[in-house]
């Protein structure tokens, strides 16, 4: 679904990404870890086409986003949802208008159908009672969840989370993590999660969402097979210094990884 092949990017003299290569498989999760300024968010911006790489190849859903024009990128973005740091909600629009933005503005769907979808998505995120509020009336955690709702409202196959839990308290962060897990396991969305919060990264990798007989969703410890579908990437100075699953990351002898994990 997403393929990075020897991607490089520099801003003036500063090298941000150096020969970065990885693949995101359908239905899997790629968790990108790294210190601040290591180029994690830059990877997401390159995938969406907000930034252009200097060298290398970037494939997203069969399109080479490193070569597409802004106009051509619009069709690729139709299958990508991105959750920005701090949410980046449109502050002059209500929660309903934010969540339904793409459907209201960029599609010809009848309004009642869009309204239904918005209410369905907000119900899924447990935010139904906030539908007519402005973003400024929401808490930090609610804003992140509205941002996730906005990104998933048009049913993209890939969701990109840029520090979705940074700055949130552990309990709120867990509710956001649960939404990421639910979207992956119940909606079949492939995800790239950028974070430097190890607790959240391992939580997402080690848990899975299951819908019970009664329709209720439960978050349970992941089966070994499911846990393998979450792959970690560690960035250091623009390079990938580790790639593997959660167990391999925990067992790594690399001094930098040990420092990072400690």
């Amino acid at each position: 679904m997403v393929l990075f092949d020897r991607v490089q990017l520099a801003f003036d003299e500063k090298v941000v990404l150096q020969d970065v290569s990885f693949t995101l498989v359908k239905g899997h999760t790629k968790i990108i870890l790294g210190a601040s300024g290591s180029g994690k968010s830059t990877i997401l911006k390159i995938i969406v086409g907000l930034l252009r790489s200097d060298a290398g190849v970037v494939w997203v859903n069969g399109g080479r986003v490193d070569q597409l024009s802004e106009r051509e990128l619009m069709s690729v973005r139709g299958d990508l949802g991105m959750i920005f740091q701090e949410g980046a909600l449109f502050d002059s629009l209500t929660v309903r208008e934010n969540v339904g933005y793409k459907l209201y503005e960029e599609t010809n769907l009848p309004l009642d159908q869009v309204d239904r979808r918005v209410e369905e998505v907000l119900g899924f995120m447990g935010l139904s009672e906030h539908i007519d509020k402005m973003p400024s009336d929401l808490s930090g955690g609610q804003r992140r969840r509205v941002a996730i709702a906005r990104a998933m409202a048009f049913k993209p196959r890939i969701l990109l989370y840029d520090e979705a839990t940074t700055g949130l308290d552990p309990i709120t962060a867990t509710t956001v993590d649960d939404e990421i897990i639910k979207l992956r396991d119940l909606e079949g969305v492939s995800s790239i999660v950028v974070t430097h919060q190890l607790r959240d990264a391992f939580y997402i990798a080690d848990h899975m969402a299951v819908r019970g007989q009664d329709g209720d969703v439960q978050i349970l410890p992941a089966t070994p097979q499911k846990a393998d579908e979450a792959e970690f990437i560690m960035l250091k100075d623009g390079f990938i210094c580790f790639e593997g699953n959660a167990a391999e990351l925990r067992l790594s002898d690399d001094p930098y990884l040990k420092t990072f994990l400690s």
Partner: protein
Amino acid sequence: MRVFGFFEDWLKGAALETQEYVRLIGAAFRGLLTPPIYRHDIIEQFDEIGWGSLTVVLLTGLFTGAALASQTGLTLDQFGARPVVGRLVSTSMVKELGPVLTALMLTGRIGSGIAAELGSMVVTDQINALRALGTDPIRKLVLPRILAGLLMAPVLTVISDFVGIFGGWVVARFQLQVATGLYWSSVTDALYIQDVEQGIIKPFVLGFMIVTIACHVGLRTKGGTQGVGRATTVAVVAGSVAVIAVDFFVTQLMVWLIY
């Protein structure tokens, strides 16, 4: 060498800004010719820029016309020409003061607002969010503002002209004791169609300049809330200077073309 290096950097910066400004205008023009067109945003901006600026333009026009009549009345008295005060008010308002003062008011009200709004959207990633959601910010945010600025500036200028001439009449009638009929006949006697053409064409250019400068500055905001403040200041200062300078050049061009 250091001075030369500074000058070189300044030139590069100016060239880059000019290039980006022209690219923005080009992209907006392409947005006008191809779908999608965000109609409700266009209507919203017409309302915001047109209706929203009406009060400030009315007040500016009224007091400018009144002050102009009061000042010129004193000078004309020295030549025993007080009855022709309407001529001075109408030609000054229609050809120069109406377009320029309306444009300056719009720069303060609209230019600063646009730069602050777009700048805030840039620093809070809302512009990137728009792009990620498949919306071209130029079509959605810039084009509606350009259309509204381009078309509402002349409308507001005409209103300002009328209100200014009316303000002149109030002073002429009640302070200078000029008969109403005499004032209005001197107003119409002094105006030629070329003057009106000049007064109508100028605000199209000025409205376009104000909005495009503000959009350009707003979209290139960097550096958080401090950057938003800086962008707002730059938009007002650059817009005001551009209004005065462009007015001069357009006046020269119009004089050369139509008189």
